[in-house]
């Protein structure tokens, strides 16, 4: 029973991180209909920056803040300088540009910080809570992670549903031309969407870095599972991203714990196919209505 609890808690904390990456991917998808494969590279860069700031200044929260600001700027710059030119073209071209950017960022990180991963501090203790004399597989830092992810998802939902800027962003994403005719500055909405996405991405990097270290390739699995979670939940839905992330985290944790680590990727495949066969647009898709 302890083991089941441990695996459940582990699934929630890893799933929260997948959810954070998924949220970032959902944001770029909603903003510009592009799956940003470079997200893993962008959050890797901002986490490296945070690492450098923390080690020179000694302040975790300063590094945290700098990473978020850098994420915001990086997202905006990437959208303005690169994606703007391919947004209107064939969707695959944007995918290839994103892949190219991912490769470029990983190479640059290797040049600047080296290929050897480094340690990254957690915001709070990673010593598991003491429950009846044993430490469970869930620490204050995991609580922080889960709360941040829930907070971000709720914040995004509020932004999209409750503010005029959110309404403009949604309009720009769904029908850019119509939105422009209604006076929405669509270009700015795209940039804002990417900036926000990269901000959430850099947050995900900060949350996961203590557990996977910081290195040019350390975030690759997180991006893959984050993307899987986003697809699972439905790429248009922030709530779906969170549900998809946590569901994926739980399933993978159980499979890894009870069946062995070698089956983890296979399990991810099976759960994704199973869900997509029943709901081809993910768990929280709105495609049903759109087909009418």
């Amino acid at each position, binding site marked *: 029973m302890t083991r089941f609890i441990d695996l459940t808690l582990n699934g929630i904390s890893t799933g929260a991180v997948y959810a954070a990456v998924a949220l970032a991917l959902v944001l770029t998808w909603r903003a510009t209909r592009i799956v940003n494969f470079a997200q893993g590279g962008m959050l890797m860069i901002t986490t490296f920056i945070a690492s450098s700031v923390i080690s020179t200044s000694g302040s975790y929260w300063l590094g945290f803040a700098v990473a978020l600001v850098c994420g915001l700027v990086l997202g905006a710059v990437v959208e303005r300088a690169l994606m703007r030119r391919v947004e209107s073209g064939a969707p695959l071209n944007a995918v290839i540009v994103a892949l190219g950017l991912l490769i470029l960022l990983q190479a640059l990180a290797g040049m600047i910080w080296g290929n050897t991963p480094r340690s990254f501090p957690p915001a709070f203790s990673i010593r598991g809570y003491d429950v009846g004399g044993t430490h469970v597989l869930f620490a204050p830092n995991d609580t922080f992670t889960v709360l941040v992810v829930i907070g971000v998802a709720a914040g995004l939902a509020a932004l999209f549903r409750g503010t005029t800027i959110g*309404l403009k962003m*949604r*309009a720009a994403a769904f029908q850019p*031309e*119509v939105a*422009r*005719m*209604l*006076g929405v500055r669509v270009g700015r909405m795209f940039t804002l969407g990417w900036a926000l996405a990269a901000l959430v991405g850099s947050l995900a990097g900060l949350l996961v870095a203590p557990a996977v270290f910081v290195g040019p390739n350390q975030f690759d699995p997180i991006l893959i599972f984050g993307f899987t979670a986003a697809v699972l939940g439905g790429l248009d839905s922030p709530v779906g991203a969170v549900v998809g992330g946590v569901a994926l985290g739980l399933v993978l944790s159980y499979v890894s714990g009870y069946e062995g680590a070698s089956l983890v990727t296979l399990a991810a495949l099976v759960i994704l196919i199973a869900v997509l066969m029943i709901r081809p647009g993910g768990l929280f898709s709105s495609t049903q209505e759109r087909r009418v």
Partner: protein
Amino acid sequence: MARLEIEKLTTDYGPVRAVDGVTLAVDEGSITTVLGANGAGKTSLLRTISGLERASDGRVRLDGEDILGVPVEDIVRRGLAHVPEGRGVIAELSTEENLRLGGLWRGAEAATLGEIYELFPPLRERRGQLAASLSGGERQMLSIGRALMARPRVLLLDEPSLGLAPLVSAQIMQLISKLAAESELAVLLVEQNARSALSIAHRGVVLNLGRVVADDAAQTLSADEGLRKAYLGF
């Protein structure tokens, strides 16, 4: 000076000339309809006026001010609203969200929203529903209502009766006529259904292969049998 003046407007899609030296004018409180067969360049004309397509040549003036080359999102701020073909409602947003979008740029108040609901009572009933769930006629109302949220001086309408039942279509036409008369709008109406368009319009322009082949008072056009047979199909 007419409210909307178009002079020798020309638009090319690569080697294809979609709009070829079109000149026309719309006065405030009046309706000018642009007629012609499929592919005559009607939609291209509207898209060029509202900045969605780049003109190769010509002029577009709104109250004497040149608006050609002004970005799409600024055209509406100058007072020109465009209701696109196929209604252009955003299916993923609710009815009310669609409406609000129309007035966001000028910070339109709930009061304006109320006026629109007065004008289109069915929309009020469906304010919370996704636009995807609306009927064809309701979508058309939504689309026009959304454009009115901007309080435009010029309204471009692209095939408002397309795919609507005759009764609904007639209602829409009545509404357009009323709008033009009451709020001193200049309406440029593109229609395939020439008969009903001419019934409410003050002036008519007939396009063929991008060129103006006739430009006259609506009644005169309706009476011209040769023209009706050749271009208007009734």
